[in-house]
C-alpha cells in the first residue's frame, strides 16, 4: 500500500492537522508520500520533510496553486493518483474542497471526516450530528479519505523524508484566486480553539465573564457559554456552545459554573479532556468530566489565573 497525503499549509508553515492525518495514515500502514502544492511553499515543504514516518515529500510550486484552487490542485493530484492505494487530507476547508473532486475524477467514493481506522478499508465516522458512529467499509480500488484531526494524535517531527518536485503545471483556467481576507481574531475562535473555557448561568452576570476571558487570554483559549447564560443576557448568542449553538471538540474544555444540561453536553462532549468547576457537588456535569473540582468560582478562577 502507498498513501498520498495532501498537506495543509500556508506556504510558510505546515498546519498541525497534517500531523494528525499522518498518524491516521500510519494506522493504515504502507509508504506515505506527502504533497505540498502552493506558491513559494519551499519553507512548508522543508518542515514537512521532518515528519516522522514520511517517505517522500512531493512539492508542486507554482502560482496556479495559490489559494489551493480545487480545479488545479485536483488536476495535479490526478496526475499521480494512480500510484496510490489511499489519498488522504485533513478535513479542512481545503481538504473538503479538493478531495471529492479528485474522487469523482477517479470514479470512487469519499469517506469524509473519519475518526478511526479499523483496517486499510474500514473506518469509523460520526454522522447525524454526532449521535451515530458508523463503521464503513470501502470497496473502491483507491480510497479517498478526509481525516478529523482531533480524533488522532499528531505525528512526531524527527524524520527526514526525501524531497521531489513535480514540475508539470496543471492550470485548468476554470477559476481564479482573487484574494484572502484573513480574519485576525484577538481571541481564539470557539470552533477551532485547542482550549475552551465556558461559563454557565452560575457566572451570575456578564461582568464575571471577564474572569474567564483573562484566563483564556493567558492560554490562548476561546470563551464559550451555555444557553442559560445567553438567555439570561450575560453574553451574546454567538458564544453559545450546545446543541443549538456551536459544537466544539477542543483538547481541553473547562466548564465553570455549568450544571451540565444535555443541550450543552451535546455541544462539547467530544472534547478530549473535560474539566468541571462547580460549587454544587450534585451538578450533572461531574458525571461527564474527566476532572471535577468542587469550588466557588470566585475562589477557583483567580487562583487558576495566578497559577497559569
Amino acid at each position: 500500500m502507498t498513501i498520498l497525503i495532501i498537506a495543509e499549509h500556508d506556504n510558510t508553515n505546515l498546519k498541525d492537522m497534517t500531523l494528525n492525518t499522518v498518524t491516521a495514515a500510519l494506522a493504515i500502514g504502507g509508504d506515505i508520500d506527502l504533497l505540498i502544492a502552493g506558491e513559494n511553499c519551499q519553507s512548508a515543504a522543508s518542515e514537512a520533510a521532518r515528519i516522522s514516518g514520511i517517505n517522500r515529500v512531493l512539492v508542486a510550486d507554482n502560482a496556479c496553486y495559490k489559494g489551493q484552487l480545487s480545479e488545479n490542485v485536483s488536476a495535479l493530484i490526478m496526475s499521480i493518483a494512480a500510484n496510490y492505494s489511499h489519498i488522504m487530507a485533513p478535513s479542512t476547508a481545503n481538504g473538503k474542497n479538493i478531495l471529492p473532486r479528485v474522487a469523482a475524477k477517479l470514479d470512487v467514493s469519499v469517506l469524509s471526516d473519519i475518526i478511526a481506522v479499523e483496517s486499510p478499508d474500514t473506518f469509523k465516522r460520526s454522522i447525524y450530528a454526532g449521535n451515530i458512529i458508523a463503521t464503513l467499509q470501502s470497496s473502491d480500488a483507491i480510497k479517498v479519505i478526509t481525516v478529523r484531526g482531533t480524533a488522532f494524535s499528531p505525528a512526531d517531527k524527527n524524520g527526514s523524508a526525501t524531497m521531489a518536485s513535480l514540475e508539470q503545471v496543471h492550470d485548468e483556467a476554470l477559476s481564479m484566486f482573487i484574494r484572502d481576507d484573513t480574519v485576525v481574531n484577538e481571541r481564539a475562535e470557539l470552533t477551532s480553539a485547542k482550549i475552551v473555557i465556558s461559563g454557565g448561568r452560575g457566572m451570575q452576570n456578564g461582568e464575571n465573564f471577564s474572569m474567564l476571558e483573562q484566563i483564556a487570554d493567558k492560554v490562548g483559549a476561546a470563551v464559550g457559554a451555555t444557553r442559560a447564560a445567553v438567555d439570561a443576557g450575560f453574553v451574546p448568542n454567538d458564544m453559545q456552545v450546545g446543541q443549538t449553538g456551536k459544537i466544539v471538540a477542543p483538547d481541553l474544555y473547562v466548564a465553570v459554573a455549568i450544571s451540565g444540561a444535555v443541550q450543552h453536553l451535546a455541544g462539547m462532549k467530544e472534547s478530549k479532556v473535560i474539566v468541571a468547576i462547580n460549587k454544587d457537588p450534585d451538578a450533572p456535569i461531574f458525571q461527564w468530566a474527566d476532572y471535577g473540582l468542587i469550588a466557588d468560582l470566585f475562589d477557583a478562577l483567580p487562583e487558576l489565573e495566578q497559577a497559569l
Partner: protein
Amino acid sequence: MRESMEFDVVIVGAGPAGLSTACRLMQQSQQEERELSICVVEKGSEVGAHIFSGAVFETRALDELFPDWKKRGAPLTTPVTSDEIYLLKNAQKAQKLSNSLVPKTMHNDGNYIISVGNLCRWLAEQAEAMGVEIFPGFPAAEILYGDDGEVKGVITGDMGIDAKGEQKSDYMPGMELHAKYTVFSEGCRGHLGKQLIKKYDLDSESDTQHYGIGIKELWDIEPGKHKPGLVIHGAGWPLNKDTSGGSFLYHADNNQVMVGIVIDLSYSNPFISPFDEFQRMKHHPLFKSTLEGGTRVSYGARAIAKGGLNSLPRMHFPGGLLIGCDAGTLNFAKIKGTHTAMKSGMLAAECIFSALISPTPVSNELTSFTENFTNSWLYEELHQTRNFGPAMHKFGTLLGGAFNYLDQNWFKGKLPFTLHDKKPDHAQLKPASSCKVIEYPKPDNSISFDKLSSVFISNTNHAEDQPCHLKLHSHAVPLEKNLALFAGPEARFCPAGVYEFVEDPQNDQKQLQINAQNCLHCKTCDIKDPTQNITWQVPEGLGGPNYPNM
C-alpha cells in the same frame, strides 16, 4: 393589511378530532358531489409532532369513519391480548386485582395499543388524498370575529419576530383564514378554545372542567420481556390518598413499551412534582422488572381534560364548533379520548355539511349539533361514566374506586343521580406552610432521569430569538404569591423545567426565569397556576416537541 384566504371550513389542529372532521366532510362531499374547500392548520412541525397519548384505542369511531381501515393500512398492529390491574400498596408491593373487581369500563377486549401520533399521520394521508389542505407549522394564533360577533375564521401566527417584538429579516405576517364554519380541535385547554368558552359563556350550564397531567416515556426493552398486547394499569403508590391518578405500562410492537402516569391536577400539596412522581414510580418492581436493561427512547407530557359530561361546555357558537378534548369529550372511566374525539369530529362534519348544502339559509350557529350529539353513542357513553371522576375526587381512590365498580358494573352508569365537582383545579392548592415538603429520590440515570435530559429526547425546539410565548399577566405575582404562599409550584408542576426560581445576584432575591424553549405544549401551567397568572400562547410555527411514535 393582512392577506386573507377563503375556505368553506377551517379546522384548527390536526389531531384525531380535527382530522376526523376533515375526512368526514370530504366523504360527504364526494358522496353528494358537492365541492368543498377545507383547510387544517397545525402548530406542530408535521402532523403527529405534538400528538401525545397513551394509548389503548377503541375502534368504534374509526370503524364508522373508514370501515376498511385495515385495507387502508391504518397503524393498528397490536391488539390488546391481556389486561391487568394492580393496586400498588407501597414502593415494593403490588396486588393484582381479580378481573371481576375491575370496573367494566377498564376492560380492553378488542382494543389496540397504538401510537396516536402515527394514527394522525395516517388520518392526514387519508384527508389529503381526498383534497384537504393541511398546513403543519402554521398555528392559529388568534380568532377572527365578524361584525355580529360571530367567528369568521382565524389568523395564523406571525413568523420572524424577535424577542423584543421587532421584525427580523425573514419576517412573514400571519394570514387571515376566512371560513363559513371554523372548527376548533386544539386538544385539551386549547388557547383559542379557552377564549371561545369565555366569550360565548359556553360553560354557563356545565361544571368547571377538570384536568390531569399525563407523562409518558417510550422504551426499547429486552426482547425476552416483551409481551405485545399486554396492558397494565396501576393505582395507588406513589400517589398518596389525596392525590388521584394512575400508572400504566403498555407493550406495543417492535420490543417497545409505553410507560406513564396520569395525575389529577386537583392535587392540593404544592410540593407535588408530577415529573418526580413518575420517575420514582418506575422504580416499583411492577415497572422496573420490565424496564431494567432497556433504553429510554422518548419522553413527553400533556394535560388531559377529564371532567366528562358534567364539565362539557356547549359545543356550538356563532360560526363554529368546539370539539374533541378542546371541549372535553374524553371518557375518563375508560381513560380513552381518541375514539370520542373522533366521533365528535364526525358529528361536527355531518352538522356542517348539512348546513352547507341546505337550500334554505341557515343560522351560522349550528344548534343542531347538540341534538346530533345527544342522540349519538358518544353521549350515551359519556353519560354512563359521568360520575367516575367526581367519585374519585369526592371519595378518594379507594372508596371512589368502589363506587365506580358498583356504578359501572352493577348499574351500568344508570344510577339516578349525578355527582358534581365544582372547584377548579387551580384553586385546590393549599398554602405551602400547611403542607409536607416532599423529598424525591435522585434519578439513577438508568430507570429514572432528570427533567432536562428528558426534554432533550422529546426533540423539543423553538426558534431562538422570539417573544416568550408564556405570558405573565403580572410580573410581581410569581414572587409575591406563587413563591411566597405556594413555594413556587410552577417549578414542580411543569414537566419540562420551563419555570425556575433563580437567585438574582444583584439583590440576593429570587426571580422567575422562564425557559420557554423547553416547553412541551402540555398546558399544565395555564391550568394549574394557582393565581391564573400564566397564559399559554402559541409560539412561532414549527416550535414545540417532535414526538416520534408517541
